[in-house]
């Protein structure tokens, strides 16, 4: 499985993503600088976490205008799977590959901690290695992860089964206490209509070995390997 990691100025989880991809897919990804005009032919495009352009404007807004994004959008529309993690999710929303917006966290503060997520469905290229309804532990680390969409859009996302992950408590309930940032419907990640683009705030690439505190993040990459090898 060949993957490309897009590197924006002040991306900072690009190396972590690369380490996880190499570990789990067996192949080192190509690192693609944002000023390039084309993404090399590949099976997966990954937009990593970080603070692209300092996030001095709305998070991800500047990166969405980077030269490389034209080709990312074109390839996504032609069916190449795209995974956006954290800042990458924000870029996907700002580029309108995914609907909605990511606002400042409910409590105004940056938040870095492990959270529990419910895997809403396991019939996608990103989640086949999990059970449907499985509760997994994945860390978050963000300031702007409070997912918002209009009422119609939200209903459409729910009706079409496009919520990928939800913040839940130990027994799988999407309670306000389990919601770290105020996201509507406890949404932690969503799919595009094609189910080939996934954006999520939590960092699966951070929990891929027991030394780091867990392996629940591996399933996402292992699912991709199974689907795209």
């Amino acid at each position: 499985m060949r993957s490309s990691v897009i590197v924006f100025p002040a991306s900072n989880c690009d190396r972590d993503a690369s380490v996880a991809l190499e570990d789990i897919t067996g192949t080192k990804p190509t690192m693609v600088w944002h000023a390039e005009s084309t993404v090399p032919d590949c099976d997966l495009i990954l937009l990593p976490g970080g603070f692209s352009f300092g996030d001095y404007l709305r998070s991800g807004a500047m990166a969405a205008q980077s030269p490389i994004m034209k080709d990312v959008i074109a390839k996504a529309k032609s069916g190449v799977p795209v995974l956006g993690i954290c800042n990458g999710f924000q870029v996907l929303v700002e580029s309108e590959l995914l609907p909605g917006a990511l606002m400042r966290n409910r409590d105004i503060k940056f938040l870095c901690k492990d959270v529990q997520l419910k895997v809403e469905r396991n019939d996608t290229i990103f989640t086949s290695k999990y059970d449907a309804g499985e509760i997994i532990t994945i860390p978050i680390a963000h300031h702007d992860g409070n997912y918002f969409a209009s009422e119609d859009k939200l209903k459409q996302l729910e009706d079409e089964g496009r919520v990928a992950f939800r913040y839940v408590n130990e027994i799988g309930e999407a309670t306000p206490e389990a919601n770290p940032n105020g996201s509507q419907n406890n949404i932690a990640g969503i799919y595009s209509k094609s189910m080939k683009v996934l954006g999520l705030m939590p960092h699966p690439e951070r929990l891929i070995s027991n030394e780091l505190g867990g392996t629940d993040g591996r399933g996402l990459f292992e699912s991709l390997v199974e689907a795209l090898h």
Partner: protein
Amino acid sequence: MSDTNLISETAIPEPVAITDELIAEHGLSDDEYKHLLEIIGREPSSTELGIFSVMWSEHCSYKSSRYHLKKLPVDGPQVIQGPGENAGVVDLGDGQAAVFKMESHNHPSYIEPFQGAATGVGGIMRDVFTMGARPVANLNALRFGEPDHAKTSHLVNGVVAGIAAYGNCMGVPTVGGETNFDKRYNQNILVNAMCIGLADTDKIFYSAAKGVGLPVVYVGSKTGRDGIHGATMASAEFDEQTDEKRPTVQVGDPFTEKLLLEACLELMSSDAIIAIQDMGAAGLTSSSVEMADKGGVGFTMNLDKVPQRERGMTAYEMMLSESQERMLMVLKPGSEPAAKAIFDKWDLDFAVIGETTNTGRLIVHHKGVIEANLPVATLADSAPEYQRPFVKTPEAPQVAPSDIPASEDVLGTLKTLMSGPHLCSRRWIYEQYDHMVMGDTVQRPGGDAAVVRVHGTNKGLASATDVTPRYCYADPYEGGKQAVVETWRNITAVGAKPLAITNCLNFGNPTREEIMGQFVGCLEGMGDACRALDYPIVSGNVSLYNETNGIGIPPTPAIGGIGLIDDIATQATVALQDEGDVLIVVGETNGHVGQSLYQELQTGEFNGAPPAVDLEVERKHGDAIRTLITEGRLKAVHDTSDGGLLVTVAEMCLAGKIGAQLSDISGNIPAGSFWFGEDQGRYVISIAASDSEALLADLAAKGIAAYQIGIATGKEISIAGDGSLPLEQLSEEFEAYLPNLLA
């Protein structure tokens, strides 16, 4: 240099009209000004006066502290670079080195907490990557005023958010540190930031600009008027006009620094750089003088070439600006185009602003005029050095357990202590820091020491910051020893071999004899501890004048230590692991209550002598614990410090979510003093029941006191004959204090 518009280098700059007021504004004493006149043999220009004022400021010259700093141990087989460079460098084996330093940003953080703390973090990271190291871990040591002081919540919120904003954007995990609250910091908070980087031992960069005719290159952000006289501000006391100093606080731009980091590391992978130095305190002045002095050369610079953010800046302003995210480099001739291409890629300024010369002088041109023409070596070495008079801190009396009212409810006292400002959970703080980015954090905040994996290996780098200011205030010598030893214990408790330390020496006004006495006492204690533990000091910083209207902070020599774990598979954590494991305290418990948190709770104040540190015992106990961890015999380890034995056990229970059934082995020591006394040299360990007898025997054979105190079990902490405390209840109150205080 090749520019034809530069005038003769023998020209003398226009003198400024000197008044007593002008000299005082520059923080120079009358004697220092006379010394200046002797050195240059004429009246200075305004730019030259500015240059002298920052070079001779306490912050840059260490004029009050240098004499004593020279007595600290700085050598060891592991030391590659000791004090004197941007950061210290320690060998990690396998061709790799740790580059680290801690620095204060106290004065700016009080005036403008967010930016003050943010730029403190930015500055210390620059110190580390200037030497060729990629920063891999940040820590911080913070001291605030009493919790209910009107400004405390504002200051904590601002400082923590500022540290988070800078470190998180840089993508460097903030993995550890400490926070204290004490009314003596009401008017002078302390923000000490530490950074650790990893470098290859054959790719470490230094600041000595050796060679003549080499290009002097400015990279990074443009220069503005921010931070002018920051170093001078940091060398004076606060008073009622402190708020007016807000304009001397710099504004941080972590985005630019992230680009600067990547650009510098990219350039460092070539062989273009001869010398490099970050522009920190005293900006272009200090960086150019230090680089020229260490290289034994002169610098001629044309300020017209300096990238500028504002119009109409004078030479004085450019030489003294403390604009952030800037570096000065000396490159190999001919490498400029390739170097510039890298900085262009990262959208950063790159400007050749001068060259190295054989004149031995710092010559500053601006708009066709020579604004400064000074001898480099004299400028660097002629700073005054004061052996300020001091009085030794009077010896504090010992406090006996019977001198304070005894707790009648030990578990109630435990709950009160752990739900208060000194011992409550620091989760509200560390969850605002990205402590996992870079994918190598193998021990997150909350334990004894943070551990990050050395990327791509199984080795672990352990780090911790510590000092107990109330001990230092009561007995500077013992307190100085204890600060060093506590980092050593914390690093030992995760299974690492302690390697070396950095420090931030935060004190009051050194012209007061009792403050100088604290300084001298603490340094003597630190030095003795470092020597006894083979744990040298490789970098650091001194912050004096932490006073407002004549009231100083308690002496606060914050120590940052690092250590190495050969294989992270054998590291230890504080979390209890299994039901039925046996809890053992290593080290003697004598119920020392002087300066303990228990004493404050029972009497309303800290009094008497702090616990004494026996360095020989510390080393014996620590070495034994480390060996046991490496052998895989221990299941959890926690060093005993603030709050004593029962707090140690409770923290292990909370981390492991397992309770403890404790025996009453206090003997003839009152129970409260036994459980909460702060005797040094102790650890609590947990071990499989099947190995506990053998372990006790092994320790006894080494002459190490160790006693079984209970077993890990259930969901509550209980002491025989003294009831029980449900963990869930303790946890709730432990976690609630800071959010309630700071929300």
